[in-house]
């Protein structure tokens, strides 16, 4: 592997200062499952690796039913799905965190890293969009927030400016009648990169009879994970009893929004087809979870 310096940052401020000083030469290390593979293959050149895993606020996993979830950018997947309160409240996030790589990868890989790596096919990003996550960013000019759907700007590219780091993700607290799901298609059962992924959430009204709002996001069908606002809007106000028609309509809108490419993993036609199928299936699961979730305190199903 190429030579570089390594610093274990002790605070967000120290990490920001190091990154601002080193510029393009520096790269953040969380779980390393993308970065170290890139360095070994020579796909990325760095002079300085800043390990942010030991900064307390980047390693925080804190759920409060009133405040929501504060998910530090370096928290590895296994800590997310092993936390019962989080697993119960954020089922779409859990779907994604438990299928990224195998257990060896989940022991290291963080959702913050998955987001900053900004792969169009990243599994966690459609789920984070479905859950309405807000990125908390720190940089030389202070702190700012960016909705997760606006974070990625292209393959491997994000809104992070020089010296900025992703500190954490804030997910709003789920209310009764909330459900979410993430599904992906891969040609085998596990350990693969999504051909298409679909992350969705629905919020039912207080009586559980009507879909109050919904969010739909797709992966691997555009240069960035895609938030399909219109697909969610098409579900708003629809009766749960009539969910199947609404779900089919939303799936059609998602399919129309998809603008995939042909590559080794799939063709345009296959991906367009999958965008509709996965969105339909994920929405069915989310509606079912929403119905089971909340009104009597029942758990989200996995």
């Amino acid at each position, binding site marked *: *592997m*190429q*030579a*570089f*310096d*390594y610093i*274990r940052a002790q605070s967000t401020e120290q990490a920001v200062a190091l990154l601002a000083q080193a510029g393009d030469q520096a790269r953040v*290390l969380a*779980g*390393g*499952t993308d970065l*170290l*593979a890139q*360095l*070994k*293959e020579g796909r990325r050149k760095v002079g300085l*690796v800043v*390990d942010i*895993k030991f900064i307390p606020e980047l390693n925080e996993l804190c759920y409060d039913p009133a405040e929501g979830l504060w998910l530090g950018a370096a928290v*590895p997947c*296994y800590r997310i799905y092993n936390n019962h309160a989080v697993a119960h409240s954020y089922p779409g996030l859990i779907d994604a965190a438990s299928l990224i*790589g*195998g*257990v*060896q*990868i989940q*022991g*290291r890989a963080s959702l913050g890293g998955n987001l900053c790596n900004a792969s169009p096919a990243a599994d966690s990003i459609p789920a984070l969009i479905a859950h309405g996550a807000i990125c908390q960013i720190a940089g030389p000019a202070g702190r700012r927030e960016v909705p997760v759907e606006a974070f990625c700007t292209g393959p491997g590219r994000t809104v992070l400016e020089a010296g900025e780091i992703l500190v954490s993700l804030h997910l709003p607290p789920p209310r009764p009648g909330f459900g979410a799901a993430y599904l992906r298609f891969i040609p085998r*059962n*596990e*350990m693969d990169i999504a051909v298409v992924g679909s992350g969705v959430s629905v919020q039912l009204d207080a009586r559980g009879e009507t879909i109050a709002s919904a969010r739909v996001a797709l992966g691997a069908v555009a240069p960035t994970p895609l938030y399909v606002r219109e697909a969610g809007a098409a579900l708003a106000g629809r009766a749960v009893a009539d969910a199947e028609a609404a779900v089919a309509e939303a799936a059609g809108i998602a399919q129309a929004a998809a603008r995939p490419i042909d590559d080794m993993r799939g063709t345009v036609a296959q991906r367009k087809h999958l965008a509709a199928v996965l969105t339909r299936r994920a929405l069915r699961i989310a509606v079912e979870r929403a119905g089971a979730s909340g009104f009597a305190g029942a758990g989200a199903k996995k």
Partner: protein
Amino acid sequence: MTTRKNETMVRTRINGDEVEFLCEPRETLLDVLREDLELTGVKEGCGNGNCGACNVIMDGVLVNSCLVLAVEAEGRSITTVEGLASPDRLHPLQQSFLEHAALQCGVCTPGFLVAAKSLLDHNPHPTEHEVRYWLAGNLCRCTGYDKIVRAVLDAADTMAAEAVP
């Protein structure tokens, strides 16, 4: 390539022993375990996190040592395949792999053993489905997995029986 500058002293615990080593930031934990500490049970397969041959347990968590920098081991506790057996007997997983002929060429075996140990540490009574999913990050090009899965299930039964007086 061979000039060793910029070295850092790392203090860690490996298979229960306090260990200190010097390394460069660019060296992986896998490099140091094999080349410097001569723990060659840890294998290098793909070197990029796909095959699991280099699996070790770090602070109770199964990881690919090829995707861990050696400097990250500072202050951690690491178990390699060398740490499984006791002086007088093999670990039940190792015994079970032998009895089930759950290996052919053997290169993947240390990774499978460590991954299976991690599974049974977390879940002493896994179903076949759980074993197959937990071991999905370990590749074997010889056995077709079936004997490995049976060996792990059998070892779980053995360990459960031994735990009951």
